[in-house]
């Protein structure tokens, strides 16, 4: 064998060894299960494929948790994880699932809207795979994941994405973006089918209010903001005013010319009111320094502070009081809470009576105090996602 071939073979073997180690980590994330201890208000777990059977057995299928008081009231759908690299959304839904007390009405909760996207990292961004929330009983571990549906589940990308049904041209990778594929297609790509299944769930379960949890870059104008369909504008505006008692909150109406987004299409293609909530996440800004789990947790970044000093951010940022994961989850909780309360005021005949922790509770007691120990809980109340 020539020296050249020996060198090539050595490189190949070296790469295979490294790939073997890396594969173990990839596989670990793909099959890692998050645990949640549901509150006593929980009534039923179903799967998204119940509303569109052709996603059954795919990584697009995801658990849907029902909390039904059995008494009249509105049906509220809250979901996180449309973009898993914005983990506060998923964790906020888990906090609601673990602590919800309900007297009237019905909640439908989905912590992992795009399950597939939560099982793969973002190429080219070097993200950590997990984040850990400290609690009194140990650490609760969650996946971080990608912005888009995993390539292993939906590939290849087109050279440009043409949105259905508007035919608007969007960036190619947005065909895997759960928040760009609404209202979806029953026979489309996996992400389009997931979106369509959500629409079917909303229409068939007669959902009244949809709340979509997100996190946003601080250099993005729509940060710490409600983005609302025009039919929910009054409710969102009023809720934003009430939020000011605990935290600043803005409100914007969904642009009619930008298609595929939940707050546009759910409002247009169903009777439900839809509001998306963005909270500030330093981690996903393009200009941040070291990309570590620590940054995801504490939100402290010197580069972002420089951007703040130059007036380049759309929300206040102080490195000594940065938006920690506790803070971001807490914001989503109060923002959603005020929305539902305002809905009650606008539609008193469909009022929902409920409780879950709000901003001040989480800031005072810590996020970990609202997450329960799965090993100490009644096994029938422990679920895996």
């Amino acid at each position, binding site marked *: 064998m020539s020296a050249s071939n020996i060198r090539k073979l050595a490189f190949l073997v070296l790469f295979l060894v*490294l*790939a073997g*180690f*890396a594969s173990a*980590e*990839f596989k670990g994330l793909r099959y890692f299960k998050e645990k949640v201890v549901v509150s006593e208000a929980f009534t039923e777990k179903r799967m998204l494929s119940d509303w569109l059977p052709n996603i059954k057995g795919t990584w697009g299928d995801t658990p849907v948790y029902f909390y039904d008081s059995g008494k009249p009231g509105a049906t509220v759908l809250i979901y996180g994880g449309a973009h898993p690299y914005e983990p506060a959304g998923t964790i906020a839904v888990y906090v609601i699932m673990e602590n919800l007390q309900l007297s009237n009405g019905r909640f439908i909760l989905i912590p992992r809207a795009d399950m597939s996207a939560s099982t793969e*990292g973002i*190429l*080219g*961004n*070097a993200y950590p*795979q997990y984040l850990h929330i400290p609690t009194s009983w140990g650490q609760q571990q969650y996946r971080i994941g990608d912005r888009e549906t995993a390539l292993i589940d939906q*590939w*290849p*990308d*087109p*050279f*440009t994405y*043409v949105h*259905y049904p508007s*035919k*608007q*041209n*969007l*960036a*190619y*990778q*947005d*065909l895997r973006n759960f928040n760009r594929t609404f209202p979806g*297609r029953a026979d*489309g*790509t996996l992400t389009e089918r997931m979106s369509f299944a959500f629409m079917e769930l909303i229409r068939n379960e007669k959902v009244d209010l949809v709340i979509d949890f997100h996190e946003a870059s601080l*250099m*993005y*104008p*729509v940060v710490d903001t409600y983005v609302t369909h025009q039919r929910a504008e009054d409710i969102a505006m009023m809720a934003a005013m009430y939020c000011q008692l605990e935290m600043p909150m803005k409100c914007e109406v969904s*642009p009619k*010319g*930008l*298609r595929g987004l939940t707050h546009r299409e759910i409002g247009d293609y169903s009777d439900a009111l839809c509001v998306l909530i963005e909270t500030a996440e330093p981690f996903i800004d*393009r*200009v*941040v*320094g*070291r*990309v570590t789990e620590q940054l995801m947790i504490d939100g402290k*970044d*010197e*580069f972002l502070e*420089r*951007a703040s000093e*130059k*007036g*380049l951010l*759309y929300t206040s940022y102080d490195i000594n009081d940065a938006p920690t994961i506790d803070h971001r989850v807490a914001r989503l909780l109060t923002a959603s809470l005020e929305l539902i309360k305002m809905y009650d005021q606008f539609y008193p005949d469909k009022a929902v009576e409920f409780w879950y922790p709000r901003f001040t509770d989480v800031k005072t007691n810590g996020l970990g105090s609202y997450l329960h120990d799965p090993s100490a809980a009644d096994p029938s109340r422990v679920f895996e996602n």
Partner: protein
Amino acid sequence: MTLQTTYTLIAMVAVFVLCSWKLKSPEISMVITAIVGALVAGFGFPVRLLVEGTLTYLDLALLFITASLFMNFYSEIGATNALIRGMVKTFYDKKWLMLFLLAFVMLVPGAFTGAGSVSILVVGGLVATVLEFMGFPPERRAAFVFITAILSAAAPPINLWAMLMAAGANMPYVGFNKILFIPVILTTIFAVFFFGRGTKARPKSEVLANLPPAAKGMNWLRLSLPFVLLLLLIFMAQYQPFVIPVIGLPLTFMLCALLVILLDPEHRSLKRWWTVATNTIETVFPLVATLTSVGVLVNIMALTGVRGLIAINFVTLPIVWIYVTALLFCPLAQGSLSYGSAVILGVPIIFRFNSVGVNVTVVAAALSLMFPLGDCLPPSRIVGRLSIEKVGYKGSYMQFLKAVLVPWLFLAALALCMLIFTKTFVPLTK
């Protein structure tokens, strides 16, 4: 953190320069630079992120491989020669018409796929051959192919940089057609006259005599059908997207390559096709290696904060300094981050301009004309390298860059004017 990241950046630059000098391999140098960067920044040896980085540009690598397979199969059956013979016979006497036709042929594939590399791989070789007959020196041939390729990528309807910036800024990808079309056409006209000046074509009879005879059984149907299929699949994906499934460009090219085999008038053996395929892989391999190692480097730059350090230093400049340095930062970012440049630098710049009330569609369009200028710059030099390889240019890379310079500056000046005088260009976004 700033200090540590600065040390890391300095260490990475030093290691890259040293390795490039000693090893003469930019690919291995980039991987070593990434490993050293991770070590200096205190991340140890991050196996997962190094391997993950190799996959960053996998789709682009597949595109290069499959487009090359298609065109090499097409050449193997003698179709390229027949096509060149046909073009020479019909248009050779009308120099400028011929040059504009060649520029148009280069613009189309990239305009509809968003990738200038597709233009080079599909028609670059053919165009270069005709340019050679027309008396273009080698570096000017490579420069013509390069400039028209980056213009094709910037041309509407698909401009990936603008699309990625629009996606990052939550803007619809609308209003870009005119504002991209006009500068692209102006630069094309300028480039054709600039490159075509003073060239002396070889006599038509001599060219035809030296061209290989048309292959037996070759006809216009065999010549055109593979391209008809290619255009059909691309147009269907763009204009009838809900009728056909998403097959992506690599499979599109593979289907076209398969059709070439079926249309072969001489019915070559499978063994022969295997030889052509392996030779193609050998040819494309260095480029794939570049993409792979750039992906590794980009991943580690993100991990260590070096990417953020560069981005924050640029976007916190006063607006006037952004005007002054945009033509430095944007092309250099493209050279190291490829399309990632639009997301890393482009999106913050859009927000920066948005904060002072500037029309962001014009800004995005201007930036999307600046980024491709970096496609000939290190460390990746993807489109530059493809151009010289496809043309068969053997001279120095600096000579090639000199040949590119004037049309490059013309496009740069246009883009900079758009960035500075945004209000003037707003009507083109309507």
